[in-house]
């Protein structure tokens, strides 16, 4: 298996190439740009036989992606932040139209003020749109997860679009050694797209349509049912991927040293790497702490969260975004998931790393200590620069 030293963005591009993507409608935005530049290079060199559509906005990128997918092509695109937000209307359309587009997202904060640095506000804001949402920690995970995403998205029981997110700059632009699958492995894992039930030239039919109150709810139920089937299909796809490449990344929420932990921190994206090294350092000092990596945000891994709650009493959630008027998204969803559960551990929401603020080992250590000593507010904006006390945020 060839190993290359590449950035997270290059890993996205390699995966799209290996997936034999047929149409790439793309519009640049920092820090996603090197994904679409790499793909442009692949296409220009003849290595990748895709139609590269140089759209004039992200909104048009998603529109072109949907129509291309509706005609039967395999589609990949990428965006970030303001661009992803601009696509919002069409993210709903892509899932409702059951077009299995895969999109790489370079997680980036939203304006104003304009920021090119990372947080998860952009993808968290899309959690209602019916897209499968996956977060990657490493370049290896990016290349593997994008390929798995195609397989899951295109599965006849699913037919939903999927986004694979990576932290802007921290992952998009840092280089690591990555085992890139061979084309032969990718072809074995990902067959050509099956395209029945969509638009066919020469066959009359209208895709999209309009409807009154009589059946709209039933169409939405179909999307809900498809999303509910994702965990099973995802597990199947990752198992098959493991058989072919000998790699898997542990399912929707892999656990690290949680079995006898007094406190566990839930993280998403590259903060996981930092948190893992803090877990090891604290364990060396005799503190029993653990880590749960939230890889899949949609569908939300309720089973895995309830399982975690049954083995640990204190769960901290590192949210790299905030839902104004409520709490951090992962915290909200974990709390909701545990509402009916017999296991009700202490939950703490740690808002950190917004706008690219560095999440250091000190930051993470503080979170674990806060969990272990039980002091501190329910929601804490860690490292926030302020002089006065605040009553609450949510």
């Amino acid at each position, binding site marked *: 298996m060839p190993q290359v030293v590449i950035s997270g963005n290059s890993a996205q591009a390699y995966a799209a190439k290996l997936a034999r993507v047929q149409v790439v409608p793309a519009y640049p935005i920092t820090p996603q740009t090197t994904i679409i530049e790499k793909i442009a290079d692949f296409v220009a060199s003849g290595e990748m036989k895709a139609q590269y559509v140089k759209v004039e906005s992200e909104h048009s990128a998603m529109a072109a992606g949907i129509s291309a997918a509706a005609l039967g092509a395999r589609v990949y695109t990428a965006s970030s932040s303001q661009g992803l937000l601009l696509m919002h209307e069409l993210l709903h359309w892509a899932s409702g*139209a*059951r077009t299995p587009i895969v999109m790489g997202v370079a997680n980036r904060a939203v304006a104003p003020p304009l920021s090119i640095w990372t947080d998860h506000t952009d993808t968290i804001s899309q959690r209602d749109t019916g897209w499968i949402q996956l977060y990657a920690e490493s370049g290896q995970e990016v290349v593997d997860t994008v390929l798995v995403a195609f397989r899951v998205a295109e599965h*006849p029981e699913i037919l939903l679009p999927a986004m694979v997110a990576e932290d802007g700059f921290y992952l998009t632009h840092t280089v690591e050694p990555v085992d890139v699958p061979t084309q032969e492995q990718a072809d074995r894992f990902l067959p050509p797209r099956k395209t029945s*039930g*969509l638009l066919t030239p020469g066959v009359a*039919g*209208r895709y999209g349509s309009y409807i009154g109150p009589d059946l709209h709810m039933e169409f939405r139920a179909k999307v809900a049912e498809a999303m509910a089937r994702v965990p099973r299909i995802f597990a199947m796809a990752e198992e098959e991927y493991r058989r072919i490449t000998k790699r898997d990344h542990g399912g929707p929420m892999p656990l690290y040293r949680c079995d006898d932990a007094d406190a566990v921190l839930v993280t998403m994206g590259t903060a996981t790497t930092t948190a893992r090294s803090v877990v090891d350092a604290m364990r060396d000092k005799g503190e029993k702490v653990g880590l749960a990596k939230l890889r899949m945000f949609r569908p939300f891994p309720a089973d895995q969260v309830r399982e975690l709650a049954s083995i640990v009493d204190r769960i901290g959630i590192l949210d790299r975004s905030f839902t104004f008027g409520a709490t951090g998204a992962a915290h909200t969803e974990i709390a909701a998931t545990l509402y009916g559960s017999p296991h009700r551990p202490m939950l703490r929401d740690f808002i950190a790393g917004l706008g690219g603020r560095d999440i250091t080992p000190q930051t993470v250590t503080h979170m674990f200590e806060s969990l272990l000593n039980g002091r501190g507010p329910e929601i804490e904006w860690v490292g926030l620069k302020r002089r006065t006390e605040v009553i609450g945020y949510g």
Partner: protein
Amino acid sequence: MKSYETVEDLPDGPLAALEAVVNTGSWRTFRPVIDRAACTKCNVCWKFCPDVAISLDGEGFPVVSLEACKGCGICAEECKPGAITLVAEE
């Protein structure tokens, strides 16, 4: 003809493929009546019907589909020989 009533009946994606069920004739307040004696078979009425409600029979005379015709009156207006009259529906 397939009917769509429950979730199970629906296709995966919103693909509509049934032919239109023609009942727009019920919209009419006036219907066109063709005087074959005056008709010169010029085809203008066929040409200008927005509802594809006029077809041409074996002899070349226009025939109005009363299931489709909305009574817009374009055919009567455009008929140069004045072979089409609009008659009020009861």
